[in-house]
Protein backbone atom coordinates (compact mmCIF):
# COMPACT_ATOMS: atom_id res chain seq x y z
CA UNK A 1 0.00 0.00 0.00
CA UNK A 2 1.16 3.53 -0.72
CA UNK A 3 0.22 5.09 2.60
CA UNK A 4 2.63 7.93 1.85
CA UNK A 5 0.24 9.13 -0.83
CA UNK A 6 -2.29 11.73 0.23
CA UNK A 7 -5.21 9.97 -1.42
CA UNK A 8 -5.88 6.24 -1.15
CA UNK A 9 -7.27 4.92 -4.44
CA UNK A 10 -9.18 1.72 -5.18
CA UNK A 11 -10.40 0.21 -8.45
CA UNK A 12 -13.14 -2.44 -8.45
CA UNK A 13 -13.36 -4.70 -11.52
CA UNK A 14 -16.68 -6.53 -11.75
CA UNK A 15 -19.46 -7.65 -14.01
CA UNK A 16 -22.59 -5.50 -14.11
CA UNK A 17 -25.01 -6.89 -11.52
CA UNK A 18 -22.37 -8.07 -9.03
CA UNK A 19 -22.89 -5.01 -6.84
CA UNK A 20 -19.51 -3.27 -7.24
CA UNK A 21 -21.15 0.17 -7.28
CA UNK A 22 -23.05 -0.62 -4.04
CA UNK A 23 -19.94 -1.60 -2.11
CA UNK A 24 -17.94 1.32 -3.57
CA UNK A 25 -20.62 3.65 -2.23
CA UNK A 26 -20.87 1.83 1.13
CA UNK A 27 -17.12 2.13 1.54
CA UNK A 28 -17.19 5.82 0.60
CA UNK A 29 -20.03 6.50 3.08
CA UNK A 30 -18.13 4.63 5.80
CA UNK A 31 -15.09 6.83 5.17
CA UNK A 32 -17.30 9.94 5.29
CA UNK A 33 -18.70 8.79 8.65
CA UNK A 34 -15.10 8.78 9.92
CA UNK A 35 -14.68 12.39 8.79
CA UNK A 36 -12.75 11.59 5.63
CA UNK A 37 -13.16 13.00 2.13
CA UNK A 38 -14.17 10.78 -0.78
CA UNK A 39 -15.03 10.40 -4.41
CA UNK A 40 -16.89 7.30 -5.63
CA UNK A 41 -17.78 6.88 -9.27
CA UNK A 42 -18.22 4.22 -11.90
CA UNK A 43 -17.20 3.72 -15.46
CA UNK A 44 -20.37 3.78 -17.54
CA UNK A 45 -20.26 1.69 -20.66
CA UNK A 46 -23.01 -0.47 -22.10
CA UNK A 47 -24.86 -1.48 -18.91
CA UNK A 48 -26.09 -4.93 -19.79
CA UNK A 49 -26.02 -7.51 -17.02
CA UNK A 50 -22.72 -9.38 -17.05
CA UNK A 51 -20.73 -6.77 -18.97
CA UNK A 52 -17.33 -5.83 -17.52
CA UNK A 53 -17.62 -2.71 -15.36
CA UNK A 54 -15.35 -0.63 -13.14
CA UNK A 55 -15.97 1.38 -9.97
CA UNK A 56 -13.51 3.80 -8.39
CA UNK A 57 -13.12 5.07 -4.82
CA UNK A 58 -10.76 7.77 -3.57
CA UNK A 59 -10.35 8.36 0.19
CA UNK A 60 -8.33 11.16 1.77
CA UNK A 61 -7.97 13.18 4.96
CA UNK A 62 -8.16 16.33 2.82
CA UNK A 63 -10.74 17.52 0.26
CA UNK A 64 -10.22 15.78 -3.11
CA UNK A 65 -10.39 18.32 -5.92
CA UNK A 66 -9.08 16.56 -8.98
CA UNK A 67 -11.52 14.65 -11.15
CA UNK A 68 -9.00 12.38 -12.83
CA UNK A 69 -9.92 8.72 -13.14
CA UNK A 70 -7.68 6.38 -11.11
CA UNK A 71 -4.68 5.12 -13.07
CA UNK A 72 -2.35 4.15 -10.20
CA UNK A 73 -4.46 2.36 -7.59
CA UNK A 74 -3.27 1.40 -4.10
CA UNK A 75 -5.40 -1.74 -4.17
CA UNK A 76 -7.51 -3.51 -6.79
CA UNK A 77 -10.60 -5.64 -6.16
CA UNK A 78 -11.77 -8.19 -8.75
CA UNK A 79 -15.27 -9.61 -8.25
CA UNK A 80 -15.12 -12.13 -11.09
CA UNK A 81 -11.93 -14.09 -11.76
CA UNK A 82 -12.52 -14.31 -15.52
CA UNK A 83 -11.71 -10.58 -15.55
CA UNK A 84 -8.17 -11.28 -14.34
CA UNK A 85 -7.10 -12.15 -17.87
CA UNK A 86 -9.49 -9.98 -19.90
CA UNK A 87 -8.87 -6.71 -17.99
CA UNK A 88 -5.62 -5.02 -17.01
CA UNK A 89 -6.15 -5.67 -13.27
CA UNK A 90 -2.46 -5.64 -12.27
CA UNK A 91 -1.58 -2.32 -13.90
CA UNK A 92 0.61 -0.12 -11.65
CA UNK A 93 0.27 -2.52 -8.71
CA UNK A 94 3.69 -2.60 -7.05
CA UNK A 95 5.24 -5.18 -4.72
CA UNK A 96 3.67 -3.77 -1.55
CA UNK A 97 0.21 -3.51 -3.08
CA UNK A 98 -2.51 -6.12 -3.58
CA UNK A 99 -5.10 -7.42 -5.99
CA UNK A 100 -8.00 -9.02 -4.12
CA UNK A 101 -9.77 -11.64 -6.24
CA UNK A 102 -13.04 -13.49 -5.76
CA UNK A 103 -11.99 -16.96 -6.91
CA UNK A 104 -11.80 -20.64 -6.04
CA UNK A 105 -8.36 -20.84 -7.61
CA UNK A 106 -5.25 -20.53 -5.48
CA UNK A 107 -3.17 -17.37 -5.31
CA UNK A 108 -0.30 -18.77 -7.38
CA UNK A 109 -2.64 -19.71 -10.22
CA UNK A 110 -4.05 -16.17 -10.33
CA UNK A 111 -0.59 -14.63 -10.07
CA UNK A 112 0.62 -16.58 -13.12
CA UNK A 113 -2.27 -15.35 -15.23
CA UNK A 114 -1.38 -11.66 -14.77
CA UNK A 115 1.49 -10.56 -16.99
CA UNK A 116 4.51 -8.79 -15.41
CA UNK A 117 2.79 -8.79 -12.05
CA UNK A 118 4.83 -7.66 -9.04
CA UNK A 119 2.17 -7.23 -6.37
CA UNK A 120 0.38 -9.56 -3.96
CA UNK A 121 -2.66 -11.69 -4.70
CA UNK A 122 -5.30 -12.11 -2.00
CA UNK A 123 -7.68 -14.83 -3.10
CA UNK A 124 -11.04 -15.40 -1.43
CA UNK A 125 -13.96 -17.62 -2.39
CA UNK A 126 -16.47 -14.81 -1.94
CA UNK A 127 -19.13 -16.63 -3.99
CA UNK A 128 -18.89 -19.67 -1.70
CA UNK A 129 -19.00 -17.61 1.50
CA UNK A 130 -21.93 -15.58 0.16
CA UNK A 131 -23.84 -18.75 -0.70
CA UNK A 132 -23.17 -19.98 2.81
CA UNK A 133 -24.19 -16.80 4.65
CA UNK A 134 -26.64 -14.94 2.41
CA UNK A 135 -27.93 -17.90 0.43
CA UNK A 136 -27.21 -16.39 -2.99
CA UNK A 137 -24.09 -15.86 -5.08
CA UNK A 138 -23.67 -12.15 -4.41
CA UNK A 139 -19.96 -11.74 -3.62
CA UNK A 140 -19.86 -8.00 -2.98
CA UNK A 141 -20.35 -7.98 0.81
CA UNK A 142 -17.75 -10.68 1.39
CA UNK A 143 -15.15 -8.99 -0.78
CA UNK A 144 -15.85 -5.63 0.86
CA UNK A 145 -15.01 -7.27 4.21
CA UNK A 146 -11.85 -8.72 2.73
CA UNK A 147 -10.86 -5.31 1.34
CA UNK A 148 -11.22 -3.76 4.81
CA UNK A 149 -9.24 -6.64 6.32
CA UNK A 150 -6.38 -6.19 3.84
CA UNK A 151 -6.19 -2.38 3.81
CA UNK A 152 -7.78 -1.21 7.12
CA UNK A 153 -8.61 1.94 5.18
CA UNK A 154 -11.77 2.36 7.28
CA UNK A 155 -13.00 0.61 10.41
CA UNK A 156 -15.08 -2.54 9.93
CA UNK A 157 -17.60 -1.04 12.35
CA UNK A 158 -18.06 2.04 10.14
CA UNK A 159 -18.73 -0.11 7.08
CA UNK A 160 -21.26 -2.26 8.90
CA UNK A 161 -23.05 0.80 10.26
CA UNK A 162 -23.25 2.37 6.82
CA UNK A 163 -24.30 -0.89 5.19
CA UNK A 164 -27.13 -1.23 7.71
CA UNK A 165 -28.20 2.37 7.19
CA UNK A 166 -28.22 2.11 3.40
CA UNK A 167 -29.70 -1.37 2.96
CA UNK A 168 -32.05 -2.07 5.87
CA UNK A 169 -34.88 -0.09 4.25
CA UNK A 170 -34.18 -1.54 0.82
CA UNK A 171 -33.79 -5.25 1.56
CA UNK A 172 -35.15 -5.68 5.08
CA UNK A 173 -33.57 -6.47 8.46
CA UNK A 174 -33.02 -10.20 7.93
CA UNK A 175 -31.25 -9.98 4.58
CA UNK A 176 -29.21 -6.99 5.79
CA UNK A 177 -28.09 -9.01 8.82
CA UNK A 178 -27.05 -11.89 6.57
CA UNK A 179 -25.05 -9.52 4.38
CA UNK A 180 -23.36 -8.03 7.42
CA UNK A 181 -22.38 -11.54 8.45
CA UNK A 182 -20.95 -11.97 4.95
CA UNK A 183 -18.89 -8.77 5.35
CA UNK A 184 -17.59 -10.04 8.70
CA UNK A 185 -16.73 -13.45 7.23
CA UNK A 186 -14.82 -11.69 4.43
CA UNK A 187 -13.00 -9.52 6.95
CA UNK A 188 -11.97 -12.52 9.08
CA UNK A 189 -11.00 -14.75 6.14
CA UNK A 190 -7.29 -15.50 5.97
Amino acid at each position, binding site marked *: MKFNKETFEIIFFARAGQGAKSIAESL*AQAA*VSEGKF*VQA*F*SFYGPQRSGAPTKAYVKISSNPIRN*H*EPITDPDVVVVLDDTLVTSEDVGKNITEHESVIVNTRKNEEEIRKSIRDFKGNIKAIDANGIALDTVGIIQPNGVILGKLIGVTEIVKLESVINQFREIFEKKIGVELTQKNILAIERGYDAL
Partner: protein
Amino acid sequence: MIPNTKYKIPNTKKVALTGGAASAEALRQINPFVMPVYPITPQTPIIESFAKICADGKADTEIITVESEHSAISAAIGSQAAGVRTVTATSSQGLALMNEILYIASGMRLPIVMLISARALSAPLNIHGDHSDVMGARDTGWIQLFSETVQEVYDNTIIGTKLAEKSELPIMVVMDGFTTSHNVENLELLSDEIVKDFVGEYKNENALLNVDKPVSYGPVALANSYFEFKLDQEKAMDEVVDNCKKVMKEFKEISGRKYNLFEEYHMEDADTVIVVMGATAGTAKDAVDKLRKEGKKVGLLKIKLFRPFPYEAVAKALKNIKSVAVMDRAISSGSMPALYSEINNTLRYADLNDIKINSYVYGLGGRDIFIKDIEGIFNDMMGGKVDKKVRYIK
Protein backbone atom coordinates in the same frame (compact mmCIF):
# COMPACT_ATOMS: atom_id res chain seq x y z
CA MET B 1 -27.71 7.33 -0.34
CA ILE B 2 -28.33 8.74 3.11
CA PRO B 3 -31.65 7.85 4.73
CA ASN B 4 -33.99 10.79 5.00
CA THR B 5 -34.63 10.43 8.73
CA LYS B 6 -31.61 12.55 9.67
CA TYR B 7 -32.69 15.74 7.96
CA LYS B 8 -34.41 17.17 11.02
CA ILE B 9 -31.11 18.46 12.41
CA PRO B 10 -31.48 22.25 12.32
CA ASN B 11 -27.89 23.14 11.37
CA THR B 12 -25.65 21.95 8.57
CA LYS B 13 -25.20 18.26 7.96
CA LYS B 14 -22.15 16.65 6.42
CA VAL B 15 -22.98 13.93 3.89
CA ALA B 16 -21.68 12.45 0.65
CA LEU B 17 -23.95 12.33 -2.38
CA THR B 18 -23.77 12.26 -6.17
CA GLY B 19 -24.29 15.58 -7.94
CA GLY B 20 -27.68 14.32 -9.10
CA ALA B 21 -28.78 13.38 -5.58
CA ALA B 22 -27.41 16.66 -4.18
CA SER B 23 -29.50 18.74 -6.58
CA ALA B 24 -32.52 16.58 -5.70
CA GLU B 25 -31.85 17.35 -2.02
CA ALA B 26 -31.88 21.07 -2.79
CA LEU B 27 -35.14 20.57 -4.71
CA ARG B 28 -36.64 18.72 -1.74
CA GLN B 29 -35.90 21.72 0.45
CA ILE B 30 -37.14 24.20 -2.16
CA ASN B 31 -40.21 21.99 -2.75
CA PRO B 32 -41.22 23.36 -6.17
CA PHE B 33 -44.88 23.11 -7.13
CA VAL B 34 -44.40 21.35 -10.45
CA MET B 35 -41.66 19.36 -12.19
CA PRO B 36 -42.44 18.24 -15.74
CA VAL B 37 -39.61 15.94 -16.76
CA TYR B 38 -38.44 13.35 -19.25
CA PRO B 39 -35.55 10.97 -18.50
CA ILE B 40 -32.23 11.08 -20.34
CA THR B 41 -28.74 9.95 -19.34
CA PRO B 42 -26.88 11.43 -17.42
CA GLN B 43 -29.64 13.58 -15.92
CA THR B 44 -31.31 10.44 -14.53
CA PRO B 45 -29.83 10.56 -10.98
CA ILE B 46 -31.49 13.96 -10.54
CA ILE B 47 -35.03 12.88 -11.34
CA GLU B 48 -34.58 9.37 -9.96
CA SER B 49 -33.54 10.82 -6.57
CA PHE B 50 -36.24 13.48 -6.61
CA ALA B 51 -39.00 11.10 -7.70
CA LYS B 52 -38.07 8.88 -4.74
CA ILE B 53 -38.17 11.85 -2.39
CA CYS B 54 -41.68 12.70 -3.65
CA ALA B 55 -42.83 9.05 -3.49
CA ASP B 56 -41.61 8.93 0.13
CA GLY B 57 -43.73 11.99 0.88
CA LYS B 58 -40.71 14.20 1.64
CA ALA B 59 -41.76 16.77 -0.99
CA ASP B 60 -45.18 17.34 -2.53
CA THR B 61 -44.07 18.49 -5.96
CA GLU B 62 -46.34 17.45 -8.82
CA ILE B 63 -44.07 15.45 -11.09
CA ILE B 64 -45.47 15.31 -14.61
CA THR B 65 -43.96 12.47 -16.62
CA VAL B 66 -44.28 13.88 -20.11
CA GLU B 67 -43.57 12.23 -23.47
CA SER B 68 -40.54 14.30 -24.55
CA GLU B 69 -38.28 17.16 -23.48
CA HIS B 70 -40.17 19.45 -25.85
CA SER B 71 -43.28 18.69 -23.79
CA ALA B 72 -41.35 18.99 -20.50
CA ILE B 73 -40.28 22.55 -21.16
CA SER B 74 -43.69 23.42 -22.67
CA ALA B 75 -45.44 22.15 -19.54
CA ALA B 76 -42.93 24.04 -17.40
CA ILE B 77 -43.83 27.26 -19.22
CA GLY B 78 -47.55 26.62 -18.67
CA SER B 79 -47.07 25.91 -15.01
CA GLN B 80 -44.70 28.79 -14.27
CA ALA B 81 -46.95 31.22 -16.20
CA ALA B 82 -49.90 29.94 -14.19
CA GLY B 83 -48.04 31.29 -11.18
CA VAL B 84 -46.16 28.49 -9.46
CA ARG B 85 -42.50 27.60 -8.97
CA THR B 86 -41.47 25.09 -11.64
CA VAL B 87 -38.30 23.07 -12.28
CA THR B 88 -37.13 20.54 -14.82
CA ALA B 89 -33.92 18.71 -15.71
CA THR B 90 -32.29 17.42 -18.86
CA SER B 91 -29.12 16.63 -20.85
CA SER B 92 -27.79 16.55 -24.38
CA GLN B 93 -30.40 15.70 -27.07
CA GLY B 94 -33.08 16.58 -24.53
CA LEU B 95 -31.82 20.14 -24.26
CA ALA B 96 -31.43 20.29 -28.03
CA LEU B 97 -35.04 19.15 -28.47
CA MET B 98 -36.19 21.90 -26.10
CA ASN B 99 -34.43 24.56 -28.11
CA GLU B 100 -37.33 26.43 -29.73
CA ILE B 101 -39.22 26.53 -26.42
CA LEU B 102 -36.19 27.84 -24.46
CA TYR B 103 -36.56 31.20 -26.21
CA ILE B 104 -40.24 31.29 -25.28
CA ALA B 105 -39.47 30.71 -21.60
CA SER B 106 -36.96 33.56 -21.51
CA GLY B 107 -39.07 35.84 -23.74
CA MET B 108 -42.02 35.38 -21.38
CA ARG B 109 -39.65 36.14 -18.49
CA LEU B 110 -40.49 32.92 -16.64
CA PRO B 111 -37.95 32.01 -13.92
CA ILE B 112 -37.96 28.25 -14.58
CA VAL B 113 -35.05 26.38 -12.97
CA MET B 114 -33.51 23.69 -15.17
CA LEU B 115 -30.82 21.34 -13.87
CA ILE B 116 -28.48 20.18 -16.59
CA SER B 117 -26.12 17.26 -16.47
CA ALA B 118 -24.03 18.38 -19.43
CA ARG B 119 -23.36 15.79 -22.12
CA ALA B 120 -22.05 15.41 -25.66
CA LEU B 121 -24.36 15.71 -28.66
CA SER B 122 -24.98 13.02 -31.26
CA ALA B 123 -23.80 12.02 -33.94
CA PRO B 124 -21.87 9.90 -33.25
CA LEU B 125 -23.90 8.77 -30.26
CA ASN B 126 -22.15 9.42 -26.95
CA ILE B 127 -23.67 9.51 -23.46
CA HIS B 128 -20.67 11.04 -21.68
CA GLY B 129 -19.92 14.49 -20.40
CA ASP B 130 -18.91 17.65 -22.22
CA HIS B 131 -20.43 21.11 -22.59
CA SER B 132 -21.75 20.87 -26.18
CA ASP B 133 -25.42 20.78 -25.15
CA VAL B 134 -25.19 23.81 -22.85
CA MET B 135 -23.13 25.79 -25.35
CA GLY B 136 -25.79 25.12 -27.97
CA ALA B 137 -28.27 26.89 -25.68
CA ARG B 138 -26.03 29.76 -24.62
CA ASP B 139 -27.86 32.50 -26.52
CA THR B 140 -31.41 31.45 -25.65
CA GLY B 141 -31.89 34.14 -23.00
CA TRP B 142 -31.37 31.78 -20.06
CA ILE B 143 -28.99 32.46 -17.19
CA GLN B 144 -26.25 29.80 -17.09
CA LEU B 145 -24.50 28.92 -13.83
CA PHE B 146 -21.73 26.28 -13.84
CA SER B 147 -20.75 24.01 -10.92
CA GLU B 148 -17.35 22.50 -10.14
CA THR B 149 -18.26 20.18 -7.27
CA VAL B 150 -21.26 18.37 -5.81
CA GLN B 151 -21.31 21.07 -3.12
CA GLU B 152 -21.61 23.71 -5.81
CA VAL B 153 -24.40 21.79 -7.54
CA TYR B 154 -26.38 21.85 -4.29
CA ASP B 155 -25.57 25.50 -3.59
CA ASN B 156 -26.19 26.65 -7.18
CA THR B 157 -29.62 24.98 -7.20
CA ILE B 158 -30.58 27.12 -4.20
CA ILE B 159 -28.80 30.27 -5.40
CA GLY B 160 -30.14 29.74 -8.95
CA THR B 161 -33.77 29.54 -7.80
CA LYS B 162 -33.51 32.87 -6.02
CA LEU B 163 -31.48 34.49 -8.81
CA ALA B 164 -33.93 33.44 -11.53
CA GLU B 165 -36.93 34.70 -9.58
CA LYS B 166 -35.21 37.97 -8.67
CA SER B 167 -34.25 38.52 -12.32
CA GLU B 168 -37.50 37.16 -13.81
CA LEU B 169 -35.47 35.02 -16.22
CA PRO B 170 -35.05 31.25 -16.49
CA ILE B 171 -31.82 29.61 -15.34
CA MET B 172 -29.77 26.53 -16.24
CA VAL B 173 -27.80 25.12 -13.30
CA VAL B 174 -25.06 23.08 -14.96
CA MET B 175 -23.05 20.11 -13.69
CA ASP B 176 -20.63 17.97 -15.74
CA GLY B 177 -22.37 14.76 -16.85
CA PHE B 178 -21.06 11.73 -14.91
CA THR B 179 -17.97 13.55 -13.58
CA THR B 180 -20.23 15.44 -11.17
CA SER B 181 -23.74 14.05 -11.69
CA HIS B 182 -22.71 10.46 -10.88
CA ASN B 183 -19.76 11.07 -8.54
CA VAL B 184 -20.23 10.71 -4.77
CA GLU B 185 -18.51 13.63 -3.03
CA ASN B 186 -18.62 15.24 0.40
CA LEU B 187 -20.92 18.19 0.93
CA GLU B 188 -22.67 20.14 3.64
CA LEU B 189 -26.43 20.43 3.53
CA LEU B 190 -28.21 23.40 5.04
CA SER B 191 -31.26 22.90 7.22
CA ASP B 192 -34.65 22.78 5.52
CA GLU B 193 -35.85 25.85 7.40
CA ILE B 194 -32.88 27.96 6.32
CA VAL B 195 -33.24 26.99 2.65
CA LYS B 196 -37.00 27.55 2.64
CA ASP B 197 -36.51 30.92 4.27
CA PHE B 198 -33.76 31.84 1.80
CA VAL B 199 -35.72 31.12 -1.37
CA GLY B 200 -38.98 32.35 0.17
CA GLU B 201 -42.40 31.86 -1.32
CA TYR B 202 -42.69 32.34 -5.08
CA LYS B 203 -45.03 35.13 -6.06
CA ASN B 204 -45.77 35.90 -9.69
CA GLU B 205 -47.42 39.34 -9.86
CA ASN B 206 -48.64 38.58 -13.37
CA ALA B 207 -49.84 35.02 -12.91
CA LEU B 208 -51.97 33.74 -15.73
CA LEU B 209 -54.47 32.20 -13.32
CA ASN B 210 -55.07 35.43 -11.42
CA VAL B 211 -58.62 36.19 -12.58
CA ASP B 212 -58.63 39.54 -10.78
CA LYS B 213 -55.82 40.76 -13.00
CA PRO B 214 -56.14 39.22 -16.46
CA VAL B 215 -52.91 39.09 -18.48
CA SER B 216 -51.70 37.69 -21.79
CA TYR B 217 -48.52 35.68 -22.30
CA GLY B 218 -46.74 35.45 -25.65
CA PRO B 219 -48.93 37.69 -27.78
CA VAL B 220 -47.97 38.79 -31.27
CA ALA B 221 -45.51 41.70 -31.28
CA LEU B 222 -44.74 42.87 -34.78
CA ALA B 223 -42.17 45.32 -36.12
CA ASN B 224 -43.62 48.15 -34.05
CA SER B 225 -42.95 46.54 -30.65
CA TYR B 226 -40.92 43.29 -30.88
CA PHE B 227 -37.65 45.23 -30.77
CA GLU B 228 -38.64 46.94 -27.51
CA PHE B 229 -39.65 43.64 -25.92
CA LYS B 230 -36.24 42.21 -26.76
CA LEU B 231 -34.42 45.27 -25.39
CA ASP B 232 -36.38 45.03 -22.15
CA GLN B 233 -35.42 41.39 -21.90
CA GLU B 234 -31.78 42.27 -22.51
CA LYS B 235 -31.93 44.92 -19.79
CA ALA B 236 -33.13 42.24 -17.39
CA MET B 237 -30.25 40.00 -18.50
CA ASP B 238 -27.73 42.79 -17.87
CA GLU B 239 -29.05 43.16 -14.33
CA VAL B 240 -28.40 39.48 -13.60
CA VAL B 241 -24.70 40.19 -12.92
CA ASP B 242 -25.50 42.47 -9.98
CA ASN B 243 -28.38 40.26 -8.85
CA CYS B 244 -26.05 37.27 -8.84
CA LYS B 245 -23.52 39.08 -6.65
CA LYS B 246 -26.28 40.05 -4.22
CA VAL B 247 -27.81 36.57 -4.03
CA MET B 248 -24.39 34.99 -3.55
CA LYS B 249 -23.65 37.46 -0.76
CA GLU B 250 -26.93 36.57 0.96
CA PHE B 251 -26.08 32.90 0.48
CA LYS B 252 -22.79 33.41 2.31
CA GLU B 253 -24.74 34.65 5.30
CA ILE B 254 -26.70 31.41 5.57
CA SER B 255 -23.94 28.99 4.57
CA GLY B 256 -20.57 30.58 5.27
CA ARG B 257 -19.59 29.69 1.71
CA LYS B 258 -18.28 32.66 -0.24
CA TYR B 259 -19.06 32.65 -3.94
CA ASN B 260 -18.65 35.16 -6.74
CA LEU B 261 -19.39 35.37 -10.47
CA PHE B 262 -16.16 33.43 -10.83
CA GLU B 263 -13.57 31.95 -8.50
CA GLU B 264 -10.02 33.28 -8.45
CA TYR B 265 -7.38 30.75 -7.43
CA HIS B 266 -3.85 32.07 -6.86
CA MET B 267 -4.63 35.04 -9.08
CA GLU B 268 -3.03 37.58 -6.71
CA ASP B 269 0.39 37.65 -8.43
CA ALA B 270 -0.19 35.28 -11.36
CA ASP B 271 1.45 35.88 -14.75
CA THR B 272 -0.01 32.83 -16.51
CA VAL B 273 -3.66 31.94 -16.03
CA ILE B 274 -6.06 29.21 -17.12
CA VAL B 275 -9.75 30.00 -17.53
CA VAL B 276 -12.07 26.99 -17.28
CA MET B 277 -15.61 26.04 -16.20
CA GLY B 278 -17.06 23.06 -14.35
CA ALA B 279 -15.48 19.95 -12.82
CA THR B 280 -12.11 20.34 -14.55
CA ALA B 281 -11.42 23.43 -12.43
CA GLY B 282 -10.71 21.07 -9.49
CA THR B 283 -8.11 19.16 -11.48
CA ALA B 284 -6.65 22.48 -12.65
CA LYS B 285 -6.31 23.68 -9.03
CA ASP B 286 -4.08 20.68 -8.29
CA ALA B 287 -1.99 21.56 -11.37
CA VAL B 288 -1.69 25.16 -10.11
CA ASP B 289 -0.55 23.94 -6.67
CA LYS B 290 2.06 21.69 -8.26
CA LEU B 291 3.54 24.49 -10.38
CA ARG B 292 3.33 27.01 -7.54
CA LYS B 293 5.54 24.66 -5.48
CA GLU B 294 8.09 24.97 -8.29
CA GLY B 295 7.87 28.74 -7.97
CA LYS B 296 5.85 29.33 -11.14
CA LYS B 297 3.43 32.26 -10.99
CA VAL B 298 0.34 30.51 -12.29
CA GLY B 299 -3.32 30.98 -11.44
CA LEU B 300 -6.83 29.89 -12.27
CA LEU B 301 -10.03 31.72 -13.07
CA LYS B 302 -13.08 29.47 -12.82
CA ILE B 303 -16.12 30.99 -14.50
CA LYS B 304 -19.39 30.23 -12.70
CA LEU B 305 -21.77 32.72 -14.32
CA PHE B 306 -21.41 32.15 -18.08
CA ARG B 307 -24.66 33.86 -19.14
CA PRO B 308 -24.77 36.76 -18.81
CA PHE B 309 -20.99 36.89 -19.20
CA PRO B 310 -19.53 39.27 -16.60
CA TYR B 311 -17.05 41.08 -18.89
CA GLU B 312 -16.25 43.96 -16.58
CA ALA B 313 -15.46 41.83 -13.53
CA VAL B 314 -13.47 39.27 -15.54
CA ALA B 315 -11.43 42.05 -17.17
CA LYS B 316 -10.61 43.41 -13.73
CA ALA B 317 -9.45 39.97 -12.60
CA LEU B 318 -7.24 39.48 -15.68
CA LYS B 319 -5.77 42.95 -16.06
CA ASN B 320 -2.36 42.26 -14.49
CA ILE B 321 -1.57 38.93 -16.12
CA LYS B 322 0.75 38.25 -19.07
CA SER B 323 -0.95 35.31 -20.74
CA VAL B 324 -4.16 33.31 -20.54
CA ALA B 325 -5.14 29.84 -21.77
CA VAL B 326 -8.84 29.19 -22.17
CA MET B 327 -10.13 25.63 -21.84
CA ASP B 328 -13.39 24.80 -23.59
CA ARG B 329 -15.25 21.49 -23.30
CA ALA B 330 -17.12 22.01 -26.58
CA ILE B 331 -16.36 22.85 -30.19
CA SER B 332 -18.12 25.79 -31.80
CA SER B 333 -18.15 24.38 -35.30
CA GLY B 334 -16.82 26.83 -37.87
CA SER B 335 -15.93 29.33 -35.17
CA MET B 336 -13.66 29.74 -32.13
CA PRO B 337 -14.74 27.95 -28.92
CA ALA B 338 -17.33 29.73 -26.79
CA LEU B 339 -15.45 30.50 -23.57
CA TYR B 340 -12.33 31.44 -25.55
CA SER B 341 -14.43 33.89 -27.54
CA GLU B 342 -15.76 35.46 -24.35
CA ILE B 343 -12.30 35.88 -22.86
CA ASN B 344 -11.14 37.38 -26.15
CA ASN B 345 -14.12 39.76 -26.00
CA THR B 346 -13.18 40.59 -22.42
CA LEU B 347 -9.63 41.55 -23.40
CA ARG B 348 -10.97 43.85 -26.13
CA TYR B 349 -13.64 45.21 -23.77
CA ALA B 350 -10.93 46.48 -21.43
CA ASP B 351 -8.26 47.18 -24.08
CA LEU B 352 -5.98 44.56 -22.56
CA ASN B 353 -4.25 44.03 -25.89
CA ASP B 354 -0.86 42.92 -24.55
CA ILE B 355 -2.20 39.77 -22.91
CA LYS B 356 -1.40 36.66 -24.96
CA ILE B 357 -4.22 34.14 -25.37
CA ASN B 358 -4.46 30.48 -26.41
CA SER B 359 -7.44 28.19 -26.97
CA TYR B 360 -7.62 24.57 -25.80
CA VAL B 361 -10.48 22.16 -26.37
CA TYR B 362 -10.59 19.14 -24.04
CA GLY B 363 -12.82 16.38 -22.71
CA LEU B 364 -15.18 15.90 -25.67
CA GLY B 365 -17.53 12.94 -25.22
CA GLY B 366 -16.14 12.14 -21.77
CA ARG B 367 -12.45 12.02 -22.76
CA ASP B 368 -10.43 12.06 -19.51
CA ILE B 369 -8.25 15.00 -18.61
CA PHE B 370 -5.31 14.73 -16.21
CA ILE B 371 -3.30 17.12 -14.07
CA LYS B 372 -0.34 16.54 -16.40
CA ASP B 373 -2.41 17.77 -19.40
CA ILE B 374 -3.14 21.01 -17.58
CA GLU B 375 0.51 21.36 -16.56
CA GLY B 376 1.27 21.00 -20.26
CA ILE B 377 -0.99 23.96 -21.03
CA PHE B 378 0.77 26.11 -18.44
CA ASN B 379 4.13 25.04 -19.88
CA ASP B 380 3.00 25.98 -23.43
CA MET B 381 2.06 29.42 -22.19
CA MET B 382 5.19 29.98 -20.11
CA GLY B 383 7.33 28.70 -22.97
CA GLY B 384 5.81 31.23 -25.36
CA LYS B 385 3.93 28.68 -27.47
CA VAL B 386 1.12 31.08 -28.24
CA ASP B 387 -0.60 31.46 -31.59
CA LYS B 388 -4.01 31.80 -33.18
CA LYS B 389 -4.87 28.13 -33.61
CA VAL B 390 -7.11 25.97 -31.43
CA ARG B 391 -5.25 23.16 -29.64
CA TYR B 392 -7.00 19.88 -28.86
CA ILE B 393 -6.08 17.91 -25.73
CA LYS B 394 -6.72 14.38 -26.91
